[in-house]
């Protein structure tokens, strides 16, 4: 009985410590995912809904890959084991489960395939040719308007978000808001 009570107390203590220390980081992870969903390409919505947040012990939220407008991803609850596994930095990892994520983020080239239905975001065309996401396939004599390629996010949107300061801002804002709530 005493052991059960101790276990319960220990679990409660774990939760309190984790909440105090990591609430801001959870909000930051959620904010970053929300911004990635908003900024990134969205044709069917599968890519936007493939962003997920995971913890060191393998708890995962999001990454459903469902079609439609983006569904907000709530960071998973952290356990004491999560915190002990990742003592420094954020215990949350953000990734995208779409098989074509490297192409959608312009980190790799890819051949454009028209999904054959209307896109959920405005579509632009004309600065790429022959369906190569991220870079035109140069065709002598063309000016880049003849190809089938379509884009629902600007080229290098992901790198710009990460390197251009917006990622830092999102984290800073979420942490500051969380600190205010704590006071």
């Amino acid at each position, binding site marked *: 009985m005493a052991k059960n009570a101790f276990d319960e107390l220990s679990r409660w203590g774990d939760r309190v410590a984790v909440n105090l220390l990591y609430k801001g980081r959870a909000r930051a992870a959620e904010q970053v995912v929300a911004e990635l969903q908003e900024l990134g390409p969205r044709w069917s919505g599968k890519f936007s809904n493939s962003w997920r947040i995971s913890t060191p012990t393998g708890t995962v939220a999001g990454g459903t890959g469902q079609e439609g407008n983006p569904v907000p991803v709530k960071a998973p609850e952290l356990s004491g084991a999560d915190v002990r596994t990742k003592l420094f930095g954020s215990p949350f990892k953000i990734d995208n489960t779409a098989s074509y994520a490297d192409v959608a983020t312009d980190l790799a080239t890819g051949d454009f395939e028209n999904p054959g239905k209307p896109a959920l975001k405005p579509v632009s065309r004309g600065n790429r040719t022959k369906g190569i996401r991220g870079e035109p396939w*140069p065709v*002598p004599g063309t*000016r880049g308007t003849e190809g089938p390629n379509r884009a629902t996010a600007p080229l290098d949107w992901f790198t710009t978000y990460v390197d251009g300061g917006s990622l830092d801002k999102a984290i800073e804002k979420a942490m500051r808001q969380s600190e205010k709530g704590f006071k």
Partner: protein
Amino acid sequence: MNYQAIRAALENPLLTAFNSLVPAVPVFFDNITAVPPNTTTEYVRINITFGITNEPTLTSSVDNARGALIIRIFTEKGRGPARNQTLLTTAVNVLETLNNTAKTNAGTFMRLGEINGPTFSSTDEAPHFVGRIDTSWVATVLT
């Protein structure tokens, strides 16, 4: 804010380096459709994107900006990575030189972050093998 001065500070040394190679390698910047003479011609695509401007905490100056520099090297597919990597090295050398340039009282002071990559990719349809690096930059316009 002088965006053009920032763009020039990044583009000019890269353009000079690739133009100095023998033979010169064509460089295409933002808003220019890459149209090399034929589909197997190697070329370089340089994209500069702007993120946050005039972030107060970045430096004491308010005339600053952050962004990303993305360099893609296009070489012939099916011939191995050597030529692509050689051209990537040319780009990285320019970035390192830029990063080691001392601050002056005028012009644009530029610092680059870590260089991500290179990563390589190709597709079934496209005739090129693509090497890619990217880095963050922070620029302060001094005049």
